[in-house]
Every structure is written in C-alpha cells, then in structure tokens.
C-alpha cells in the first residue's frame, strides 16, 4: 500500500544500508551514548567514591591512603551507630506503614464511585509535587508555636497539651516517619491498584460459590496474586527510603540530639559541612550493601517471572 512512498522517499544509499543491516552494529551504536553517560557519571564516580573513602581527604587537601581506616573508625563512633539504628527504624517503619496504607487505599480505589479519576489524581499529588517544597509545608505545620496540627487537635479536644513535633527525639522521629509515609503512600497505592486490576473477576466469583467472603477472599486470593507487585514495590521503596535525604534534611536536619540522623544526611554533614570528604564518602558507601541486597532480591524475583 504505502510501500511505494517509502521507496521514493528513501534513495538507495548502499553504504548506509549495509551498515544499518548489521544488527549488532546498530545495537551498539544506539546504546553507546547512554552507555557513555553511565560509565562516565556512574561507574567512574563509584570507583572514585571507593578511592576517596579509603583516604583521609579533607576539603582542599588531597589526603593520604589510610586503607579501611574510615570504616573502622565509623563502626566505633556512637554517633554513626545511632545513625545506623535511625536509618533502620525509619526505613522499616515507613515501608510497613506505606505498604499497609497503600494496600488499603488500592482496594478502596478499585471500587466504582463518582469522580474516581479526579480522586485518584488528587491522591497522587503528594508524590508528584517537589518534595522539598511540600516538606517545607510540613515544617510549617509542625512549627513549635504555630503548629496547625496542634491547633486542630487541641480544638477538637483530642490532646490536652501541645505535641512537641520536632522538639524532642521521639516526636521528631514520628514526624519524619509521618511525612515520608504521606509522600510514599500514593506510589504504593497506584502500583498495587495496577496489580489489582489484572486479577480476573472470575476467580472471586468462583470463590464466592465456594462460600468465601470479604476478608477471606482478600487473604486467599487477592494477596497471593499481588505478591509479585508488592515485592517489587517494597524493594524499590526500601532502597529509596534507606537513602532518603530531603525529608530529614529539611524537617530536622538530623536533630534533635542526632535522633533523626540517617546515612545520607550524616554523609552530607560530614563531607560537605564539616569538610571531611573521606569519612563522608565512607558513610555514603554504607548504603551500598543495602543496595546490593535489594538488587539481588529484585533480580531473583524478576527472573522467576
């Protein structure tokens, strides 16, 4: 039909055609620009990170090779050990909260109701809007004097005195967990919803014939079928939360008393504020084992499919 048109538009260029016919050559040509970027700005910096972390480099001085000195020093540093603990508390609690709420929200959104698309769009906002800006709003909502959350809770009689949101170690951790959960639930909900929509209705109908109801249906049919989606989402979220920076940096800056310091914020403080680049780089690299575990689990999961 339209083939004549192509022939007319494409004059014979034998040398070009011969080149393009080689599938492998075309393939390499097409991936090379992307590959170049990744080698130059991911692989090389990674090697650089390792080499910097093995030195006692400080800002403005090259430093000397100290083997694993930074790592052994960090593992004896109570501040750093607290950072490790905080990172685990932060990651485990937010990922479980996000999963629980995301699952509930996905199930709710899977119903038919008026303005469904609008509601779905509105619920995605926390995940779309620049995190640093929405977290500033939370900072204002947690303000020690003007906190609107305290104002509302006091007004409703739910609390009798102000909650010191960012003021004490316990509540500061609660605050960063709330904000991270707020930001992350939409991602969980939408991904799980996508998984939910692929479950054929007949499965439920069959189980209803067998007498299964409400929660049992969810437990025995929905959840097992959602397992692959859930695994992928949880793995993604785990690595991103573990390496999170903005929420803590803006809300608490790791404080009070180091109570919310996590890997990335501590690495930033040590390397760029205090200028101990070698040590900061070592802190950053502690994220690598976590990344490795996630990658291995993810690959195992994807390969099974």
């Amino acid at each position, binding site marked *: 039909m339209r083939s004549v048109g192509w022939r007319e538009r494409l004059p014979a260029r034998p040398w070009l055609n011969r080149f393009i016919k080689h599938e*492998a050559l075309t393939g390499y040509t097409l991936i090379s620009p992307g590959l170049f970027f990744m080698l130059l700005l991911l692989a090389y910096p990674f090697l650089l990170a390792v080499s910097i972390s093995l030195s006692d480099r400080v800002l403005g001085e090259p430093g000397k090779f100290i083997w694993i000195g930074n790592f052994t020093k960090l593992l004896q540093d109570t501040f750093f050990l607290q950072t490790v603990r905080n990172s685990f508390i932060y990651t485990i609690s937010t990922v479980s909260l996000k999963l629980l709420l995301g699952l509930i929200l996905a199930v709710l959104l899977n119903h038919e109701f008026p303005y469904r698309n609008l509601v779905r769009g509105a619920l995605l906002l926390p995940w779309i809007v620049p995190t640093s*800006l929405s977290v500033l*709003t939370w900072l204002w909502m947690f303000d020690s004097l003007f906190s*609107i959350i305290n104002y509302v809770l006091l007004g409703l009689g739910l609390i009798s005195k102000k909650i010191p949101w960012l003021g004490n170690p316990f509540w500061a951790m609660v605050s960063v967990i709330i904000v991270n959960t707020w930001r992350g639930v939409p991602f969980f909900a939408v991904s799980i919803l996508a998984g939910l929509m692929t479950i054929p209705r007949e499965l439920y109908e069959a189980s209803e014939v067998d007498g299964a109801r409400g929660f049992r249906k969810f437990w025995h049919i929905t959840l097992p079928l959602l397992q692959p989606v859930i695994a992928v*989402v949880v793995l993604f979220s785990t690595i991103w939360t573990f390496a999170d920076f903005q929420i803590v940096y803006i809300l608490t800056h790791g404080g009070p008393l180091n109570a919310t310091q996590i890997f990335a914020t501590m690495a930033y403080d040590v390397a760029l504020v205090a200028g101990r680049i070698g040590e900061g780089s070592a802190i*950053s690299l502690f994220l690598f084992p976590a990344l490795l575990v996630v990658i291995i689990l993810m*690959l195992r999961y994807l390969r099974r499919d």
Partner: protein
Amino acid sequence: MRRKHIRKIKRILGLYIPLSAFLFFALFPFYWMLISSFKANPELYNLQAKRLLVKEPTLEQFKELFDKTAILRWLWNSFFVSFLTSLISLALGIMAGYALARLKFPGAQTFGLATFITYLVPTTLLFIPLASVVRSFGLSNTLWSLVVTYPTFLIPFCTWMLIAYFKSIPKDMEECAMIDGCNRIGAMVRIVLPMAIPGIVFSGMFSFTLSWNEFVYALTFISDTTHKTMSVAVPTELIRGDAYFWGELMAASLLGSVPVALLYSFFMDYFVSGLTAGALKG
C-alpha cells in the same frame, strides 16, 4: 427496601469514610500551603483568628517574593534544566530502549540488566564523588552541572520504561516496512515511534518532574543564588538564619508546585496508564 438501606450504609462506612480520610491526609498540607500564601503576616501569625480560613485574602506575600527575591530566575532555572535534561534523556532512552527491545547483539542482556540496576542507584550514594567530577569539568556552580548529571538517573528510567513500551508493539509492522525497503532506523522512526507516543510522553513528563524535584545534586553542586533551582532555592534562600518567613515560603512553595501539578493534570491519562504499565513491568 431495608436491604438496600443496609447496603448504602455499608458503602458509606466501608468506602466513602475511609476514602475521605485518605483524601484529607493527602490534601491538607496543600490546603494549608495555599491559604498560608494568601494571608498577610498579621493574620498568618494571629493565634486567635480562625486559622483554617482566610479572612482577608491578599497577594502581599507574592509581591514581596517577586520584589525582593530572584524567584523568576529560580523558576526559569528549574524549567531550563528540567526541559533540557528530559529531552536529552528521552532521546538517548529511545535509542537504547529500542535497541534492547528489538535488536539481538552480544551484551544486550547485560546492558539491560545494568540499566535496571542503575535505575535503583540512589543519588545520595554518589553525590560526593560526583561533586569532584563536576568540579574537574569546571562546571561547579553552573546549571550545566545539573544538565550533565541528571541524565544519570533519567536515562535508565526512560530506557527501562520504553523497553516495555516498544516490546508491546507488534513486530510485524516494522518487518513489513523493512521488507518494503525501509531500513532499521527508518522503521523505528516511522513505525515504532508514532505507536509508542503514550510511553514517550509519559517518560518525558516524568523525567521533567524528576528533574524539577531533584534536590541532593542541586544542593551540592550549586551555591550561587542566581543559579539555584526552585527545589533548593526556596528552602535555602528564603530561610535567613533562624528567621522563617512563612508567608513567603508558602507562596514560593506554591509557585514551585503548580507547574508540575499542571503538567500532570493535562496529561493525567497518559500518566496513569504509563504508571500502571511501568509498575506491572516493574
């Protein structure tokens, strides 16, 4: 009659109430951002006022922002960087994505795997060495430091998304075109790309959003006021020492959030379909 009643109550308790709770939790911060930016300082800091409403709406905070800060410059910087990086990443992502979805060559699988893995690498893992790489290129304190580094997380994202899209397009069409004398690249440009437009729009849009929202690199590489992007300028430039000007901060946050929210509401359908496709392919 009675059963219908019970069904309705069940629906309210089981669907509408929990859904409203989620909506409230998700949207309240935006409501608070919005009304805070339209209040003048006396009303904003008056604890006796009805704080959840605006009594006298005013544009004072915005005026202050435009008169005294480089907000227009920051918005432009964000736009410039996001637009350019999404374009670069989309172009390279289309090339790599097509190669990996369609062509057989040694190393293709390894490269696909590497793409996926780099997509998982968090920016906070490499920001320290990247700062010195950027410095050695002489790009510190310029927008180019971001234009160069953002594709490191955008290219893997675009590539990965587009592989899935390209694979969903039947091969017969381009094979026909190639039999008719079109070469590989011609078939890709004329047949596959037009059919992959939803995926391309989604990837481009999402790349734009990711760049617009990026924080760690922008914070690390740029310290000059005039070269900052919105996401970093607002929390660093508008908080002077210990003084928080909340009205201005909220007005600026609103201005920084609206472009992405708008972009995303225009392309909502592409967005949801792209997101769900991506999540499933994951």
